C-alpha cells in the first residue's frame, strides 16, 4: 500500500468547542481522553485538549501535542473496504490462521463452512483469517498516539483465541461480504461453560462483540465498542453450532450501528438478538516498523 500523507491534525468534531467541564460523560470527546491519569503524558494531552477547545476547531495546532484527526472517509487515508480487507487478511503471511476446520468441528459447522467457502468463489463473500492478536491484522498500522498504552506485553492474545487446545474454547470462522454484512459460525467448547453443559452468556457476548468489531472495521474503520446490547433467548449447548448473522444498519456521526441474530443451524432456535454501536477511528501508519 503506497504511503499516504496524513491530513493536518484537526480538533475532533464540535464537542471540543465547549469548555472542558461541559463535555458530556458519554461524548466522544470524553471517550478520547486518556485513561491513565497518573502519567505525565496524559496530563499534557489533557491540557492540549483544553487548549484546543479554547482556540476553536479551525486549522492545525502548531507545535502542540498530537490531536486525533477528524475522521474523514474521503481523505487520502480514509480507506475503502477493499483496501481494509486486503490489509486485514494479510495474504502473504506465515501467521497461523485459526479459521480453518479441525477435528473438533461438529458436522453442522463443517457443512456451513463449506457452503460459505463456495460462496467466496461466486457471490463475493470473503473468508476472514483469524490470527493470535488483532495487532497481526493491522501490520504497518497503529492506534492514534493519544490511545497508545505504555504497557505493551508481547504475549498478548485476542480474547477469542486465548484457549489453545482445539475444540476446547472458541471455534469460529467469520465470512464478510462487502455489502456490509457478515456471518460467524461459532461452536463453544467445554471451557466456555456457564450453566452445566451450556455456553456461558459472556462467551456469546464476546463472540458477538468480536464479530461486530471485525465487521465494523471492514465496513467503515469502526474500532471501539461504544454500546453492546444483548437479549438472550435460549442457551447454546456446548459443542453445537450457533450462526451469527450480522448487518451494519447505518453509519452516521462517526458511529457505526450494527445488529445481529444468533440462531441454530436449522434456524429453529433463536439464541440471542443483539445490537451495537462502534466508534469510527482511523489507524495511523506505524513508521517504526519500516
Amino acid at each position: 500500500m503506497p504511503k499516504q500523507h496524513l491530513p493536518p491534525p484537526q480538533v475532533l468534531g464540535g464537542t471540543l468547542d465547549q469548555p472542558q467541564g461541559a463535555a458530556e460523560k458519554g461524548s466522544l470527546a470524553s471517550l478520547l481522553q486518556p485513561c491513565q491519569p497518573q502519567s505525565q503524558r496524559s496530563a499534557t494531552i489533557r491540557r492540549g485538549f483544553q487548549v484546543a477547545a479554547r482556540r476553536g476547531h479551525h486549522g492545525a495546532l502548531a507545535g502542540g501535542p498530537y490531536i486525533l484527526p477528524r475522521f474523514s472517509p474521503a481523505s487520502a487515508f480514509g480507506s475503502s473496504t477493499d483496501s481494509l480487507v486486503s490489509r486485514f487478511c494479510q495474504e502473504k503471511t506465515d501467521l497461523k490462521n485459526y479459521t480453518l476446520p479441525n477435528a473438533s468441528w461438529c458436522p453442522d459447522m463443517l457443512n456451513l463452512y463449506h457452503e460459505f467457502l463456495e460462496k467466496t468463489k461466486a457471490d463475493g463473500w470473503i473468508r476472514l483469517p483469524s490470527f493470535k492478536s488483532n495487532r497481526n491484522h493491522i501490520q504497518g498500522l497503529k492506534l492514534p498516539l493519544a490511545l497508545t498504552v505504555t504497557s505493551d506485553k508481547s504475549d498478548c492474545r485476542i480474547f477469542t483465541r486465548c484457549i489453545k487446545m482445539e475444540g476446547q474454547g472458541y471455534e469460529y470462522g467469520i465470512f464478510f461480504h462487502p455489502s456490509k454484512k457478515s456471518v460467524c459460525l461459532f461452536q463453544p467448547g467445554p471451557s466456555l461453560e456457564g450453566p452445566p453443559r451450556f455456553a456461558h452468556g459472556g462467551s456469546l457476548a464476546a463472540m458477538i462483540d468480536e464479530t461486530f468489531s471485525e465487521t465494523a472495521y471492514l465496513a467503515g474503520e469502526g474500532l471501539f465498542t461504544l454500546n453492546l446490547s444483548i437479549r438472550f433467548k435460549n442457551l447454546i449447548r456446548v459443542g453445537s453450532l450457533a450462526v451469527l448473522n450480522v448487518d451494519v444498519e447505518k453509519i452516521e456521526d462517526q458511529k457505526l450501528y450494527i445488529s445481529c441474530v444468533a440462531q441454530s443451524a436449522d434456524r429453529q432456535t433463536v439464541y440471542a438478538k443483539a445490537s451495537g454501536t462502534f466508534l469510527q477511528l482511523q489507524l495511523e501508519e506505524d513508521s517504526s516498523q519500516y
Partner: protein
Amino acid sequence: MLRSCTAALRTLRALRGRREGASPAARDPVLARRWFSTEKVIPKDHALPNPSWSKDLRLLFDQFMKKCEDGSWERLPSYKNSKLVKEQLSQAQLFTRGYEDGLGFEYVIFYNDDEKRTVCLFQGGPYLQGVPGFLHGGAIATMIDATVGMCAAIPGGIVMTANLNINFKRPIPLCSVVVINSQLDKIEGRKLFLSCNVRSVDEKILYSEATGLFIKLDPEKSLT
C-alpha cells in the same frame, strides 16, 4: 453463570450457618463424614491473592476484607468446577477460571446482603486483548454478566440473563485493575432489574455503565 450461582448460594448458606453458630455439617457428624468422603481433593479457591495480582488489586482486596470483619460484607469463594454437578464433563470448567494465573481473569466478588449489591475487583490479563493494548469488549461483558448475575442470584436464587445493555465510555487498558459495582434496582415477580458501573481504582474514571434484566428460573424445569 448458573453453575457459579449455585456454588455461591451453597457457600452463602454455609457462611450464614457459621455466623449463627456451628454449621450443620459440624453439628451432624454423620453428614460431615458423608460430605468429606465424596471430596478427595480440596478444590482451589481462586478468589484469593496470587503472585499475578498487582499492588492495586491486593490493596483493594485487603480493604474489602476489612469490611467483611463486621459481617456486612462477605467474600465469595470461586471454584473452577462446581461441586454440585454430578456427571461432570472432564474438560468442563467455569469459563472465567480456565486460565493460568495472571493471564486471563483475576477477580474476586464481595457482596453486601443489606444493600443488595456486589463489588467485583477485576484485573484483566494479556489473554483478554481486543484492540491492541486494551481489554476486549467481550471480556468486560463477561465480567459485568458475572458480577450482575451474582447480585441477582443472591436474592433471586437460580437466575438467567435475559438482557444485558452495556455502554462503554472509555477503553480499559490491559492488565489494569477496575472495580465493578452492581446493585439490585427492583424486583417484579420473576424479573430482577439491576444496574452496574465499572470504575478505576480511585473512582475518577468511569469506564462503562450497564443495565441488566435477569429472570428467576423454575428449578423444576429443565434448561432447554
